[in-house]
């Protein structure tokens, strides 16, 4: 029972991380109608830049702003140079141009940092597990990620529903031309949104460092899952991204943790492990297929 509880907590932690990535992606998707495969590269940039700076300065907490800044700047840069030209193109061209960006970013990172993955230590003071329940030890760093994700979710909610920027974002998603006609600098708005999405991706990337290895290709692994979150949640819906992120995080973590064990009851150990891992990895895609077939627009279709 405690084991299940622990895995659910791990799932929630993974889920909020997916949310951090999906929030930016779904905003970009919903407002600019751009499929940005390079979002995973921004996650990687945040992780590498932050980790590098943390190692240079010896402080985990100094790495955080460095990672966020690097990701946001990279985001603004690729919006201005590449993505801006893709707004009026069809999905195929967007997919290919941002696919090219992935190739470029991966190779640049290899050239600068090499192929060896970085392993990052937990920040000082958060290394010892704490006792959540009698018999349940849990690393506080993972709780910190959950807190950060929930904090961003609440912050985004207020930003989108209560502020002027949020109003422009919502208006831009509904009717781009009308917003432009009212004298809003839509081009600047898009750059800001893209940079903000990149910042959230960088945050997720840096926080992921101590849990997963910081390595080339880390972005693609999580990118596809993030797209699944965005599509299940409903393209353009932050609320959908949050709900779908948590569902997928818990589902994926629990399947990976428990499915091989269940299969081992009916088949040989190594085969059960391999097949269990395979089917567990299929789980989220299966869920997406089912959701799309029942609700083609996702769980929370953005109002248009």
């Amino acid at each position: 029972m405690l084991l299940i509880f622990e895995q659910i907590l791990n799932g929630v932690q993974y889920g909020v991380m997916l949310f951090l990535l999906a929030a930016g992606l779904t905003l970009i998707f919903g407002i600019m109608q751009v499929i940005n495969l390079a979002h995973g590269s921004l996650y990687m940039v945040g992780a590498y830049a932050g980790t590098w700076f943390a190692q240079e300065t010896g402080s985990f907490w100094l790495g955080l702003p460095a990672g966020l800044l690097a990701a946001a700047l990279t985001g603004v840069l690729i919006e201005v140079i590449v993505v801006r030209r893709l707004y009026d193109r069809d999905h195929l061209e967007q997919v290919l141009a941002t696919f090219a960006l992935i190739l470029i970013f991966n190779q640049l990172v290899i050239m600068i940092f090499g192929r060896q993955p970085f392993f990052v230590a937990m920040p000082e003071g958060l290394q010892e597990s704490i006792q959540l329940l009698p018999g349940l030890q849990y690393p506080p760093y993972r709780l910190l990620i959950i807190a950060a994700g929930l904090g961003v979710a609440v912050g985004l909610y207020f930003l989108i529903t209560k502020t002027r920027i949020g109003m422009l974002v919502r208006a831009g998603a509904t009717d781009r031309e009308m917003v432009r006609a009212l004298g809003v600098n839509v081009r600047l708005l898009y750059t800001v949104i893209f940079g903000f999405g990149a910042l959230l991706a960088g945050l997720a990337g840096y926080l992921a460092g101590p849990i997963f290895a910081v390595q080339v290709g880390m972005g693609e692994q999580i990118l596809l899952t993030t797209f699944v979150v965005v599509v299940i949640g409903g393209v353009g819906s932050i609320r959908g991204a949050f709900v779908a992120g948590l569902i997928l995080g818990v589902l994926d973590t629990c399947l990976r943790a428990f499915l091989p064990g269940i299969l081992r009851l009916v088949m040989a150990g190594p085969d059960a492990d391999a097949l269990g891992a395979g089917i567990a990895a299929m789980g989220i895609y299966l869920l997406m297929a089912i959701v799309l077939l029942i609700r083609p627009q996702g769980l929370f279709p953005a109002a248009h």
Partner: protein
Amino acid sequence: MDRSNALKTLAAVIGLLALVAVPIIADAAGSTAWISMATRILIYGMAAASLNFALGYGGLVSFGHAAFFGLGGYVVGILYQTYADETLLFGFIPGTNQLLVTLPATILVTGIAAAAIGALSLRTGGVQFIMITLAFAQMLFFFFSGLSAYGGEDGLIIRRTNELFGLNMRDRATLYWVTLAITALFFVIYRRLTMSSFGTIVSGLRQNERRMAALGIEAYRYRLIAFILSGIGTGIAGAMLANVMRFTSPDLLAWHTSGQLMIMVILGGVGTVTGPFLGAAVLLILEDVLNAWTENWPLILGLVLLVVVLQARGGLMAIVNLVRGNRS
């Protein structure tokens, strides 16, 4: 009119002769690696052309065609392993190493897979269609990665290429000519298909679905058939690739492969007949040349791709047509 047709036929004959002569030229030049490269170009060309039928003509942006490519490879691989082990697949299907059996089996398996995936995916559209096709391909990718009886993540080695009419399939040139014959047959069917009334309807659906509906055409059915044909073509290419590489692995099913096929299509020219073959040739040769030149070749490939997508609309075929148009 007659003269231009005669010219076209002449060009086609010369082109075919040149393709037939590739192994002889390569042998004379002492670079047998060219033969393997040419074989791979033909195979990837078939896969890209098949994708182009769905993507370029039908407007169905499938990000999951690697599924059919990989399935084709696994049909050959699994049938060969069953044959080598002298067991029965699922308890009743005997294995085989005959190309004349494995190719129809590929058509059957990828046809059924494409029918299932297409029937479900075509209920959505736009971004959702891209993502759901990707999802199905990923499911198959993880399924085969976990299938340890057939190599799992490491892939499946096929010790010997499938046999055909007692030909020496170990000889690279023979294998090339067999691939060329299959590609030629494929090309004739594919070209007829794009020009047929069926192909026109599929194109029409991309351009204006409502008008087609007004003409009494049921979009879903036509799109599904186009998707199935596209999947089968890609599957045949995958089966041939497994034969040539004597290896198949989950990598063939990975989303990078889907991306690669899309790159070939857009590089050559979306919705053109010969473009995908041209795109396959350019991409594979470019990868090869860059790879020999610098270990940072993906960076350059990415930049080239970016420029092509952003600047050159219509791909290489647009350039070819421009040159041709200027001459006449």
